[in-house]
C-alpha cells in the first residue's frame, strides 16, 4: 500500500493547517502538490512566470518543507510556478534554497525541467514525431520558433526518475496534474487503473469532497484500487463527490490521456466505506503503442493598451452600441492617418454583453455601461499611441453633430493602462519520444550541506 498526501489543489491556494497536520500523522509515503495549470491563461507560459505572489508561495512552501522533514518522506511539486517553464522552476528552486538556508535544513533536491528547445522540436516536426490533437492550431517551423516558451508535460516515468535519485524534494516543471501523485504508487506496483484514477480524483485536493476549501486529502493506493480520505474535520468524500470529480475540467468524463496510455473509468465502482471515506475499484489503464507527451507553447500576440470609460447619460446608454461603432470607425480612421496600419481597436460594453459578446442574445443594459477600449498592436509604443487617439472619443464623442459636446466618466488619469506584451497558446500537439527522458532534464543538488 502507498499513501499519498495531497495538501491542496495548488501551492498558493491555501489549506486547512489542522488537516495537513492530521495528514502527516497518517504516515504518508509522499507529499504531492500541484503548482499550476494553463487555466489562468497564456501570460504565465508566455513570460515563464508564476501567478501567485512570491511571499505566499514561500510561506506555504516553507510549511510543506517543514511537514516533509517531520514526516521524513519525499515532497514533490509538479508544474512549478504556474506554467512549469524552466524560468518558473528556477524561481521556486531559488525560494527553496532561501528556505533551506533560513531553516538550516539539509535537503537533497531533484529538479526536473520540461522546457523544450524550438530547434529540437523543428527537427521532430520534420521527422513526423509531432502529432496534432483536436482542435489543432496550424503549426510550422515559424510557429515553433516564435514561441517564448514550450513545455512538454511529464508523466509518471520522468517523476519516477526524479524520485529514484533519493531526493527529499522534487521540483518539476510542467507535468500532467496526475503524474506527481501516480509516480510512486505505480513504481511500487499498485493497480495501474486505480492509481491513475485516484490521481485524477486527488489532483485538486479536497475538491472531490463536500468541503473543497479544506484542501488536504489522503489517497491510499493498493493492488486493486484506491481509497480517498479527506483530512479536514468537516470534509466528507461520498461516491457522488468522488465520481462527479471525473467531470471537472475534463472534456471526456470516462477517459483520461496520459503519457504512455489512457485511463478508462467506465467500469469503476465507488463504494462508501463509512460516511467520509470512499473506495474505488474497477478502473482500467490501457497502454498505448507509442509513448507521447503533450506540448504546450505560448507566443507573443502583440502589445495591448486598455482604456476605461463609464457612461451614465440615459440617451447614450440607450444608444451605446451605435455610439461605440461610430467611435471605433472614427478612431481607427484617425489613427491610421497618424500611425499607419496593423492595430485593432475593440470596445467591450461592460453591463451589456462584455462577457459573452454576440452569443448573448438576451443582453440588455441597466442605468450605466462601462466601455472597455482595447487596443492591440505589434509594438508597445504603437498600442499606447493608438489608445491616446481613442481616448478623446471615449471622453467627448457626441451621438449627433447637433448637440453640445458631452463628457463621460474616466475613473482615473491617464485613462489608458499599458498591459504590455500579450501572449497566445499556439500548440495542441503531442511529441513522440523513444525514451521518456529524451525531452526532459534531471539534475540533483544538496542544499544546506
Amino acid at each position, binding site marked *: 500500500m502507498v499513501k499519498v498526501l495531497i495538501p491542496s489543489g495548488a501551492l498558493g491556494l491555501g489549506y486547512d493547517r489542522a488537516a495537513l497536520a492530521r495528514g502527516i500523522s497518517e504516515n504518508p509515503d509522499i507529499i504531492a502538490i500541484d503548482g499550476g495549470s494553463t487555466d489562468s491563461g*497564456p501570460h504565465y507560459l508566455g513570460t515563464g512566470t508564476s501567478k501567485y505572489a512570491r511571499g505566499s508561495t514561500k510561506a506555504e512552501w516553507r510549511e510543506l518543507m517543514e511537514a516533509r522533514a517531520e514526516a521524513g518522506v519525499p515532497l514533490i511539486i509538479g508544474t512549478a510556478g504556474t506554467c512549469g517553464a524552466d524560468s518558473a522552476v528556477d524561481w521556486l528552486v531559488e525560494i527553496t534554497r532561501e528556505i533551506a538556508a533560513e531553516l538550516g535544513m539539509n535537503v537533497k533536491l531533484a529538479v526536473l525541467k520540461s522546457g523544450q528547445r524550438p530547434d529540437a522540436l523543428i527537427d521532430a516536426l520534420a521527422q513526423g514525431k509531432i502529432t496534432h490533437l483536436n482542435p489543432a492550431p496550424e503549426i510550422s517551423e515559424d510557429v515553433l520558433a516564435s514561441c517564448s516558451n514550450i513545455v512538454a508535460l511529464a508523466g509518471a516515468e520522468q517523476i519516477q526518475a526524479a524520485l529514484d535519485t533519493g531526493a527529499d524534494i522534487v521540483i518539476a516543471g510542467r507535468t500532467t496534474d496526475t503524474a506527481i501523485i501516480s509516480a510512486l504508487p505505480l513504481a511500487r506496483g499498485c493497480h495501474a487503473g486505480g492509481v491513475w484514477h485516484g490521481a485524477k480524483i486527488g489532483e485538486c485536493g479536497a475538491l472531490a469532497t463536500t468541503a473543497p476549501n479544506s484542501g488536504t486529502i489522503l489517497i491510499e493506493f493498493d493492488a486493486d484500487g484506491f481509497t480517498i480520505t479527506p483530512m479536514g474535520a468537516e470534509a466528507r468524500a461520498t461516491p457522488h463527490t468522488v465520481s462527479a470529480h471525473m467531470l471537472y475540467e475534463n*472534456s471526456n*468524463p470516462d477517459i483520461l490521456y496520459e503519457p504512455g496510455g489512457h485511463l478508462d473509468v467506465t467500469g469503476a465502482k465507488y463504494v462508501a466505506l463509512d460516511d467520509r471515506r470512499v473506495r474505488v475499484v474497477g478502473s482500467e489503464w490501457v497502454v498505448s503503442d507509442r509513448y507521447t507527451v503533450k506540448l504546450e507553447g505560448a507566443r507573443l500576440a502583440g502589445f495591448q493598451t486598455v482604456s476605461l470609460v463609464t457612461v451614465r447619460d440615459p440617451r447614450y446608454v440607450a444608444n451605446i452600441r451605435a455610439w461605440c461603432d461610430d467611435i471605433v470607425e472614427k478612431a481607427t480612421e484617425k489613427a491610421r492617418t497618424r500611425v499607419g496600419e496593423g492595430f485593432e481597436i475593440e470596445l467591450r460594453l461592460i453591463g451589456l454583453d462584455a462577457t459573452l459578446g454576440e452569443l448573448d442574445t438576451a443582453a440588455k443594459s441597466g442605468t450605466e455601461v462601462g466601455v472597455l477600449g482595447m487596443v492591440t498592436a505589434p509594438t508597445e509604443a504603437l498600442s499606447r499611441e493608438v489608445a491616446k487617439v481613442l481616448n478623446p472619443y471615449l471622453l467627448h464623442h457626441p451621438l449627433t453633430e447637433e448637440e453640445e459636446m458631452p463628457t463621460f466618466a474616466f475613473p482615473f488619469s491617464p485613462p489608458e493602462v499599458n498591459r504590455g506584451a500579450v501572449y497566445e*497558446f499556439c500548440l495542441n500537439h503531442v511529441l513522440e519520444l523513444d525514451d521518456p527522458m529524451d525531452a526532459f532534464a534531471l539534475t540533483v543538488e544538496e542544499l544546506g550541506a
Partner: protein
Amino acid sequence: MSKLSDIAVKVRSKNAGPFWLTVDIFCGTPEVFSQVCASVTSARIAEVLKADPAVVDRYEMASLNVLKLSLPRPAIQGTREDRDMHGASFAALVAELDV
C-alpha cells in the same frame, strides 16, 4: 415552459484545457435527468454557442444524473477574441434554455 436553471441543480461550464469547453448539467433526479436529456439536444447547445453540432461531444451519465457536453472553445483561451479566461460564464447561456 421552464428554464433549465429552474429544474437543474446546477449548470457549470469550465475550460478543459485552453482549447476545449465543457458544460456539466447536474440534474439531481432521474426524472429531471430524463427530461433534460430529451430537451437539451446537442444541436441546441451548438446553436447557443454558435458551434458546429458535429463537434459537440455528449455524455449522458445516468449514474450521476449529469448531462455533460464538450466542444472546442468559442475562442481559444486567452486570445484577443476571448472574453472569459476561465470559460465559466458560458453556463449562463445553457442555463437560460427553455426545457
